[in-house]
């Protein structure tokens, strides 16, 4: 036991959200099955907003005898996660009602997954880390398969479940090795053990297995195989949610583990992260070139983005962590905006998912085409849009800590990946128009507009994001 304080109030946001989920569950059950869907969804969104407020206002500090911490790093990530989850629910409401998957359990499962993610980023003990991760994963497996009458959704859910269980197994194996060789599961105590110097082979093996498990959860290469299938098979709003909140939580957890207990042995794991990051960027760039389905494309794109974010971790410095956090913030807005566009790809009451379906969008829906173009330019990392700065910060951190090769490979893959982002723009602006899409929902228009404004405005007002990321990163390094 590291700390000897209970400090219950530090976990107030988590407790509030969990209790809200239980209350909504009861409401949903008694209000008569699926009529309650819309009410439960909006109530879940409100609960998340309140939770975000509690997170920001929170007292913080270590809690539960060193198993939990509410530091600025956790606060920053929790706000991002809650934003992602709330937007995920908002984007799913209309879709779910149209596609007959309006089951009130859906927002509740997402809320519980969010509780799990919040527990993940606050974990300072292997035990609480694992339980947070499992709470999140279990809810996500169910959400992926929620349209159980379609073969694709059940297939994606099953695939996700089986591979996810293997990853959990690897993670647990790694943890048991680390525990066996150091005698503790507490991050603070572990950090003390690591600071003493030499790393035993057993701990190193455990570390490698833990990293492998975490890589699976953030879908970094070579543990990415499930991503395109799950992204394609799951219902689109679920994919949007998958691409955002769990990714942020997973990467934050990765940073917390690497920079917490294993901060003293950066030299031992740096090469692992460098390799994973390079592979992810390469696969993200090259495998996406031939994709025709836009959801699969986004899957590979997200693999690439994880690679870029891991560049910041590979740097192993405070600047690197700050860069990851900025990257995650930008990634959140960028991806939510893009998925709002994908969710608007509806023609004659049916969803379409191919890139060619966007043909001539500039003529039929000029505003939506402009928004998509800006988001795609940002994804590709073209200045002065926000996506450029995300990449700029991580590469700068890598160069500062001497990883010049990594930064160069990152730049090259970024250029390669620009091809498929620009191709979407080309299809929209220069191809012959096909039939118009159906009318967009208001909430989608709002989300797209806000995302675009953020992408454009970041260059003028970077401070809110970069400053809070700096505070968060400093907290992780204890200064």
């Amino acid at each position: 036991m590291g700390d000897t304080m209970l400090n219950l109030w530090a976990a107030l946001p988590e407790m509030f959200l969990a209790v809200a989920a239980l209350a909504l569950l009861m409401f949903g059950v008694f209000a008569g099955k699926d009529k309650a869907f819309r009410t439960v969804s909006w109530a879940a969104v409100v609960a998340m907003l309140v939770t975000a407020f509690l997170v920001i206002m929170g007292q913080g500090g270590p809690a539960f005898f060193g198993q939990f911490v509410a530091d600025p790093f956790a606060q920053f990530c929790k706000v991002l996660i809650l934003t992602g989850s709330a937007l995920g629910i908002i984007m799913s409401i209309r879709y779910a009602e149209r596609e007959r998957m309006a089951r009130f359990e859906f927002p509740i499962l997402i809320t519980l997954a969010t509780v799990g993610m919040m527990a993940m980023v606050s974990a300072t003990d292997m035990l609480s880390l694992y339980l947070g991760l499992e709470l999140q994963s279990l809810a996500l497996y169910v959400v992926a398969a929620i349209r159980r009458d379609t073969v694709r959704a059940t297939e994606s859910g099953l695939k996700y479940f089986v591979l996810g269980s293997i990853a959990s197994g690897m993670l647990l194996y790694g943890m048991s090795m680390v525990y066996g060789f150091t005698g503790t599961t507490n991050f603070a105590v572990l950090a003390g053990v690591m600071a003493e110097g030499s790393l035993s082979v057993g701990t190193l093996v455990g570390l490698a297995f833990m990293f492998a498990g975490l890589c699976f959860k953030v879908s970094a290469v070579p543990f990415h195989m499930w991503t395109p299938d799950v992204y394609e098979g799951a219902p689109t709003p679920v994919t949007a949610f998958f691409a955002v909140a769990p990714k942020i939580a997973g990467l934050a957890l990765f940073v917390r583990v690497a920079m917490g207990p294993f901060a003293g042995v950066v030299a031992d794991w740096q090469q692992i992260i460098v390799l994973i990051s390079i592979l992810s960027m390469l696969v993200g760039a090259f495998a996406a070139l031939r994709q025709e389905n836009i959801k699969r494309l986004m899957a590979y794109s997200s693999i690439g983005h994880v690679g870029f974010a891991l560049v910041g971790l590979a740097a192993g410095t405070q600047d690197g962590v700050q860069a990851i956090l900025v990257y995650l913030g930008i990634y959140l807005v960028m991806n939510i905006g893009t998925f709002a566009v994908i969710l608007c790809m509806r023609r004659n009451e049916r969803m379409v998912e191919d890139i060619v379906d966007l043909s001539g969008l500039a003529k039929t829906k000029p505003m939506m085409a402009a928004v998509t173009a800006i988001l795609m330019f940002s994804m590709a990392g073209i200045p002065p849009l926000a996506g450029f700065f995300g990449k700029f910060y991580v590469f700068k951190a890598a160069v500062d800590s001497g990883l010049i090769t990594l930064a160069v490979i990152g730049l090259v893959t970024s250029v390669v990946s620009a091809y498929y982002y620009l191709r979407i723009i080309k299809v929209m602006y220069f191809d012959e128009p096909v039939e118009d899409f159906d009318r967009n929902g208001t909430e989608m228009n709002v989300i797209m507009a806000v995302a675009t404004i953020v992408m454009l405005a970041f260059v003028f007002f970077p401070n809110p994001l970069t400053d809070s990321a700096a505070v968060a990163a400093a907290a992780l390094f204890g200064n």
Partner: protein
Amino acid sequence: MVVQALAFYLFASIAVIAATLVVTVRNPVHSVLWLILTFFNAAGLFVLLGAEFLAMLLVVVYVGAVAVLFLFVVMMLDINFTEMREGFLNYLPIGILVAVALFVELAFVGATWALTDEKVAALGKPTPDGINNIEALGNLIYTDYVYVFQASGLVLLVAMIGAIVLTLRHREGVRRQNISEQVRRTRADTLEVKKVPVGRGI
């Protein structure tokens, strides 16, 4: 001490015999009944160790819930267990191989393990001084590890919601029990009297 030792050997030997019977008897229902006997004897062993709360828990949870669930499954699914056992001889060699490997490993562990005075001292006290079983467990679960305990509860809740979401469906045309509807049924709803003309049939 003699009584304790006798009780230990009684519980232990019955547990071993019952456990062997669980896997050897032909009738699966008998198998479950032997399993219940095994649980009871294991509970007895817990009592001897001074862990009376765990003993009660074992009886309540395993005998009361798990074994009964097994019994339900065995009786409702109508699995032909003799058929499943047919390949037993084919797999015997590899089974023996695995068993030998496990035994060798156990022997290695046993050879390196020593009962030091320290361990004897620890064995003598199943719980810290002056605290009984339930208090000791309660301190761990509800104070030291309250966070992970509650988180596990949430994980189980998600598992339950997930199982219901993915499996519960209301099929059309299935007759469900609805007491009030069934009671409200009148003769007019179900009976129809037809006059059949003489000599023409229905």
